[in-house]
């Protein structure tokens, strides 16, 4: 997107589009390679995994055997190439703590994270859009001022502290919802889901609500500014002049037009949400990939942390790539030469 200000214009031909996609793809791959070097170098600086695994009273021979079995006795460039080669084949190594393939570990935990994140997005959309539309249509009314101040407060409450308040109020004082863990799940298509389990649903409420607060604030603001924008467009004026019922005006013409930016921005925020679920999962002991990351950091479980970093980079690079390509399709000026 930063390229837009170069201002070079290209024709609206398929060839420039292909070129643009190829160039962005190339940039993304270079970015991933740079990140892989940084991650590898960074992780090597942290701690000596042999010392961590062998413990205090290991002999020198033990250490060497251990280093050999994990390939840690090789020169660094060789270790890096081996590391890169394995990653490309989808082999992120074996967890020092769990003794199992890292990728399997992460994919096992992924549904729990996705479940909370998507539930939070749904709640955010369901609450935020009506609040935003109301504020946009009734700018001078008192509830709008309350909503507006509410979003500022919501933005200002740190995620982790808000999670603690939820636990304090709903689990300690009112005793209506469990404070931590995932509870029972119902298996559908081989994956366990909490939302389809009456008891499990109680466990997912607090973590999802915790993530949803920031989303509600964001979507309220987006829907409000979108509503203000769309209501003054000529087609809305025309629809109003034609005497279309207010409910139809809002439900059909307004909603359809403000939904596109809201959904786009929410999609772009998906990565941020998955990242933020690290905090939520840690506070609520929710067994997703965020908690796995922090547990692995505390236990110096290097392969897991490395895999998380690489996969997170891959995810963010992909999200940016897709967003750039969509923007380039929509706005030909971006396809610079």
């Amino acid at each position, binding site marked *: 997107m*930063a390229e837009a200000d170069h201002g070079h214009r290209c024709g609206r031909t398929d060839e420039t589009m292909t070129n643009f996609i190829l160039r962005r793809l190339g940039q993304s791959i270079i970015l991933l390679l740079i990140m892989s070097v940084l991650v590898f170098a960074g992780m090597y600086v942290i701690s000596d995994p042999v010392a961590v695994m062998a413990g205090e009273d290991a002999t020198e021979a033990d250490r060497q055997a251990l280093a050999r079995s994990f390939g840690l006795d090789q020169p660094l460039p060789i270790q890096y190439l081996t590391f890169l080669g394995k990653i490309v084949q989808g082999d992120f190594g074996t967890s020092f703590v769990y003794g199992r393939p890292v990728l399997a570990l992460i994919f096992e935990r992924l549904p729990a994270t996705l479940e909370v994140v998507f539930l939070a997005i749904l709640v955010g959309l369901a609450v935020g859009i009506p609040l935003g539309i109301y504020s946009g249509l009734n700018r001078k009314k008192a509830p709008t001022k309350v909503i*507006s101040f509410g979003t500022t407060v919501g933005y200002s*409450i740190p995620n982790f502290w808000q999670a603690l308040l939820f636990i304090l109020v709903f689990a300690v004082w009112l005793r209506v919802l469990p404070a931590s863990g995932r509870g029972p799940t119902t298996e559908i298509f081989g994956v366990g889901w909490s939302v389809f389990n009456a008891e499990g649903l109680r466990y997912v409420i607090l973590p999802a609500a915790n993530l949803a607060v920031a989303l509600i604030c964001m979507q309220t603001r987006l829907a409000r500014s979108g509503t203000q924008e769309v209501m003054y467009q000529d087609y809305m004026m025309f629809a109003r002049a034609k005497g279309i019922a207010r409910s139809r005006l809002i439900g059909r013409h307004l909603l359809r037009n403000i939904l596109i930016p809201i959904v786009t921005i929410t999609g772009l925020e998906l990565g941020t949400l998955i990242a933020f679920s690290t905090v939520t999962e*840690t506070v609520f002991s929710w067994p997703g990939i965020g908690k796995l990351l922090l547990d692995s950091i505390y236990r110096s479980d290097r392969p897991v942390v490395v895999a998380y970093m690489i996969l997170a980079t891959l995810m*963010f690079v992909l999200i940016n790539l897709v967003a750039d390509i969509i923007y380039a399709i929509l706005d030909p000026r971006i396809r610079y030469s």
Partner: protein
Amino acid sequence: MSETTFESSAGRFDRFRAVFAGYPAAVAGLIGIVLFSLIALFAPVLAPQDPFDQSRLDIMDGLLPPMSTLMDGTLSVLGTDAVGRDILSAVMYGMRTSLFVALVSVGAGVAVGVVLGLVAVMRGGWIDAVIMRTADLTLSFPGVLLALLLLVVFGSGADKVILALAIGIWAQNARLVRAVGLSEMKKDYIAAARLAGIGQLRIMFHFLLPNAISPVLVIVPMAISGAIVAEATLSFLGVGVPITEPSLGLLISNGNDYLLSGRWWISVAPGLVLVMMVLSINVVADRLRDHANPYLQART
């Protein structure tokens, strides 16, 4: 900024007042910022107890609820933690750490970002490309996750937290300065300065900087509140500042262990102060942003 602004200090004050007049929430935010800064600055004088002086702490005072009296007769308005530390005093000292880390990291991040943004504008070519692609790389990660992963590599400590946060902050500023700087470069005064034979460095800092800095100044308050929250989050997760200089985040984390047993005050008090601090800055930041963008102001 003396090159471009020729107003007296009184004129500046009037302009400052005009931004906030009629916006009670923003004024309250300003008062809050001043108040919290003063408390943080004078914590050693104001705090009823020195929370770091181990010899003054009495284990018998441990986990007392708010409004209890300590063994030495002082009143503990907000209660005590497990080692008998007065929460109010700990919060006052914690604000110092939180504010210090946030201000230094934002200061460093903004300075580096502005200079790199200006260099990108002045030099262009591959230097521009390298700077901006690096900015893209840092911006593709959400701030807290980037800082968390950097701290895994750096290890914890206040200096490392500052470094990790500054790395997250510079990129946004570099982008902003570059965008504004590119349009400024096309203007006549830059061409005139070049024709007059003024050196690159002087053009960069005396001509370009004052004219490209205002959008950065608008986002600085938001960056500070963001850094306060990020530091608190990192310290809460246990990868931030060390236990010897607890920030608000670490104080909240300490209270976390006692939450389920109903001893809420250890976490709630530092958390409330944290929220009030961030909220004060955010309402001021919102006002500054709306003021800088009259289009939005007219609509809301």
